[in-house]
């Protein structure tokens, strides 16, 4: 197989965006060298990849979205001059010229007025976009506050059971979790080192049942100060059936089964 064939085999993956960085860089260099065959293949592959959208379950946007869009685009239409039918001067009496002059003055005024209104509409649109951004920010803050309130309820409720997760590495901090029979599991930690690049931490439920496989709960990663708090509203198993909680480091997106040994683990009493 020559080098061209090797590049040709990467085209489909490049079109779908799944090539890893090294392969991608090599293929882009090859495309930049002007290979028409690969460029044509890439065009067809891009079309083909776009067809995968039809795998998505059918769904319809709300009527409100169409209304919002049409309102926005109508407000952006530039004003066009009115088209008047040509009239021959010889057939036009003086009083009609006067009328045309008045109409002309009126048209100039209308154009000026329309320009002013466009400017106002543009201002209003900018304000609306600012408000939309602010609303999104408030919604995000509300969602965060809701999660925090839920977590606070778990931590404060006497029915919750506290589970300590000591680290396998004695230099690492201990994590702690709280399990409420109805509200779920909350786990948190401080001064926790960041996982490796493109990796996350993942919480697991280890069942008591002999031979039972670990069940994935949630992925998370600490902030710049090493602090994190993660919540599982509906654990897949009951506390009474659970032997322990464990945390491993996994590739981004999480894993169906642990790929390494637990970095933290704590028994559920």
């Amino acid at each position, binding site marked *: 197989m020559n080098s061209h064939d090797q590049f040709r085999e990467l085209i489909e993956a490049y079109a779908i965006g799944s090539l890893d960085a090294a392969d991608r860089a090599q293929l882009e260099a090859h495309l930049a060298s002007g290979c028409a065959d690969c460029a044509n293949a890439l065009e067809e*592959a891009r079309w083909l990849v776009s067809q995968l959208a039809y795998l998505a379950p059918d769904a319809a946007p709300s009527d409100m*979205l169409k209304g919002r869009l049409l309102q926005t685009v109508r407000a952006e239409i530039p004003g066009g001059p009115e088209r008047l039918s040509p009239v021959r001067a010889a057939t036009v009496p003086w009083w009609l010229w006067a009328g045309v002059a008045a109409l002309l003055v009126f048209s100039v005024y209308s154009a000026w007025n329309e320009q002013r209104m466009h400017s106002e509409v543009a201002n209003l649109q900018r304000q609306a976009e600012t408000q939309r951004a602010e609303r999104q920010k408030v919604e995000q803050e509300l969602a965060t506050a809701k999660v925090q309130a839920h977590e606070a309820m778990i931590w404060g409720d006497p029915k919750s059971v506290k589970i300590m997760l000591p680290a396998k590495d004695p230099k690492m901090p201990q994590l702690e979790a709280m399990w409420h029979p109805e509200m779920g599991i909350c786990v948190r930690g401080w001064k926790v080192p960041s996982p490796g690049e493109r990796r996350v931490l993942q919480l697991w439920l280890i069942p008591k049942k002999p031979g039972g496989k670990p069940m994935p709960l949630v992925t998370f990663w600490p902030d710049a100060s090493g602090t994190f708090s993660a919540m599982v509203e509906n654990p897949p198993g009951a506390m009474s059936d659970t032997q322990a909680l464990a945390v491993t480091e*996994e590739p981004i997106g999480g894993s169906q089964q642990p790929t390494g040994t637990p970095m933290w683990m704590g028994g559920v009493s």
Partner: protein
Amino acid sequence: MFLAAFSPKGSEQVSPDATLMQQLLRKDVGAFEELYERHSRIVYSLVLRILRQGSTAEEVVQDVFLQLWRNSSQYDVRRPLVPWLLTLARNRALDHLRLKSERQRRREEQSEELPQIAAAAPEYERALDEKRRAERVRVLIGSLPAAQKKAIELAYFEGLSHSEIAASLHEPLGTVKSWIRNGLLRLKEGLRASS
């Protein structure tokens, strides 16, 4: 066989989308509304599948159609519109996911302001109408082994790389690469055969 089903390029008919896009260049709101009616459903379905959140999906769809309205002059009306719209929508939706995950740093490196999408559709595109083509795509991908289908979905809907998919599915990297390439080639051959 399928090539025989097509007339020469010189006698190609102008597609309804191309006509509407020409009207859109003149800022025709009616054309915009018709384009929205024709394509908003598949665009929304795709974005909702990626983001799984209705209100965010509608914001992305709104951005996509406003880009179509505002930047219609940058669009080549001779090229197929739907792949362009779908690729733009997918890129925008995956950009939203970037807020939740670092995996989008890889995409950021290759992101484009206006995607170079499907500069030319293969000839077999015209042999099937959109509804029949959608059905064929579902059947062809649905006939793949479950793990292969999952690998393609992780790449397309989640924006994962080969390595990330291999780690997620606990499969060798080479297997994942073959699955994705062969799956897409099978889709291509299946669409050709349908024409």
